[in-house]
């Protein structure tokens, strides 16, 4: 029973052959006497993590509380795609989240002597932040191994490519648009010709919208994820929202920052591609496949198409596609890889 794990800034998503589990990657610390707080949370069926006398509400409940009580600060174990360096309580919370969505691996038996395989993903090295990925990678590996898995790692955009580029012989551009980062891989026949990440994603959009509209970040995120009226492809002239309301201001700002984010990403992709030696020539047009939670907003592909200019883009592109079930696509790519590793292990044993 292999498992694929997408370790995102906003969500941890574990995919198995017959089940997908999602957990929002956020927490909120509750003041009060530990045992009393735990009893109260257990009665209300609110998930919590206790460490060193502190009790943290975890996941969607923490996110909801942060919206209701604007004075409480939502804490994030990860920031910009990597472990949050300013968050001291991040590791026990991550440990608990991983423990819940993965569960303990089944013990090897005579029939199945190998450990269960877990493939998780890490971002490529960011080009706009001076940070390495290796510590983040090692910590996650250590946590997953604690639950008894044989652990392998792949890059996030490559995992997306395994789901979205199979019909073009693993040739094309895959872009995973997450909350903390956007990851890009240019693939040619299964090989990664270029991969990088930028430390901008959905959080960058939300923070800028919050600053410009004076609304809390949690509220902006909630409107972005849940609004029925949001369509970022609608232009200012065709504004369908009630002008002047807080929600309308947030929606207008969201459209603007989505355009800026996509433009930033495409510009950097062009610069990176032109700056790398030995990049393959693409004789035929290839697809761009997009996934990740930040791409779920309505009208995303239209805005992407608006920002995309084939005349200046270095690779001939035949289509820009939003992958099916974009939120879980990376975890599914990890799962496919995990299953193939497990099959290889079994073949080598027999």
């Amino acid at each position, binding site marked *: 029973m292999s498992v694929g794990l997408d370790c995102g800034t906003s969500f941890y998503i574990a*995919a*198995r*052959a*017959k*089940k*997908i*589990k*999602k*957990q*929002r990657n956020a927490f909120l610390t509750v003041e009060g006497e530990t045992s009393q707080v*735990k009893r109260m*949370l*257990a009665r209300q*069926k609110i*998930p*919590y*993590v*206790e*460490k*060193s006398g502190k009790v943290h509400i*975890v*996941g*969607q409940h923490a996110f909801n509380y942060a919206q209701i009580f604007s004075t409480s600060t939502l804490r994030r174990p990860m920031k910009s795609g990597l472990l949050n360096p300013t968050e001291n309580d991040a*590791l*026990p*919370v*991550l*440990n*608990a*989240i991983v*423990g*819940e*969505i993965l569960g303990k691996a089944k013990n090897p038996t005579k029939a199945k002597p190998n450990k269960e395989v877990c493939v998780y993903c890490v971002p490529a090295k960011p080009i706009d932040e001076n940070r390495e990925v290796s*510590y983040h990678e*090692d*910590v996650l590996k*250590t*946590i997953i191994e*604690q639950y008894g898995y044989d652990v392998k790692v792949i890059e996030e955009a490559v995992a997306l490519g*395994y*789901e979205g580029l*199979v*019909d073009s*012989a*693993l040739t094309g551009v895959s872009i995973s648009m997450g909350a903390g980062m956007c990851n890009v891989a240019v693939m040619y*026949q*299964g090989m990664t010709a270029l991969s990088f990440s930028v430390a901008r994603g959905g959080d960058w959009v939300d923070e800028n919208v919050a600053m410009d509209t004076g609304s809390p970040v949690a509220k902006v995120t909630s409107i972005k994820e849940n609004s029925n009226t949001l369509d970022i492809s609608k232009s200012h002239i065709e504004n369908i929202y009630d002008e002047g309301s807080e929600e309308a201001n947030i929606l207008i700002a969201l459209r603007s920052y989505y355009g800026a984010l996509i433009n930033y990403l495409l510009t950097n992709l062009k610069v990176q591609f032109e700056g790398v030696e030995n990049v393959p020539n693409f004789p035929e047009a290839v697809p761009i496949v997009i996934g990740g939670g930040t791409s779920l907003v309505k009208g995303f592909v239209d805005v992407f198409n608006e920002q995309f200019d084939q005349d200046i883009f270095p690779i001939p592109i035949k289509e820009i596609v939003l992958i*099916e*079930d974009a939120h*879980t696509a990376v975890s*599914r790519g990890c*799962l*496919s*890889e995990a*299953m*193939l590793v497990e*099959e290889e292990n079994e073949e080598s044993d027999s």
Partner: protein
Amino acid sequence: MRELLIEWLLNYLLISLVLWQIGFILHLLLKNHYGKRSKEIYKTIPSTPTAVEVELPNRNKDIGVVDVNVKKHIVADKPTDFKIDSDETIDGSVKLQKDKLKELRSGL
């Protein structure tokens, strides 16, 4: 007594005069013989070091960075207690591209 004193004095003057004359004559003789010599400055001429060719051991010209494996000891802090249910669980067969991926890999 007075005559004796005068005689000693005369003798003393006479002997002194003779000694001075001898000294003066010797001075003249030495001066004529060796003459005046200017001060000689002895300059130390530095010797120019010349390189000595020696046989060098063979080595690669481009020596790159050597990467090493590091034994990492990472402690992932465990929680004292936790009770979590996933925010969302989607049951049912998950659509995967595994078989196509396997085909591509075997064909590549």
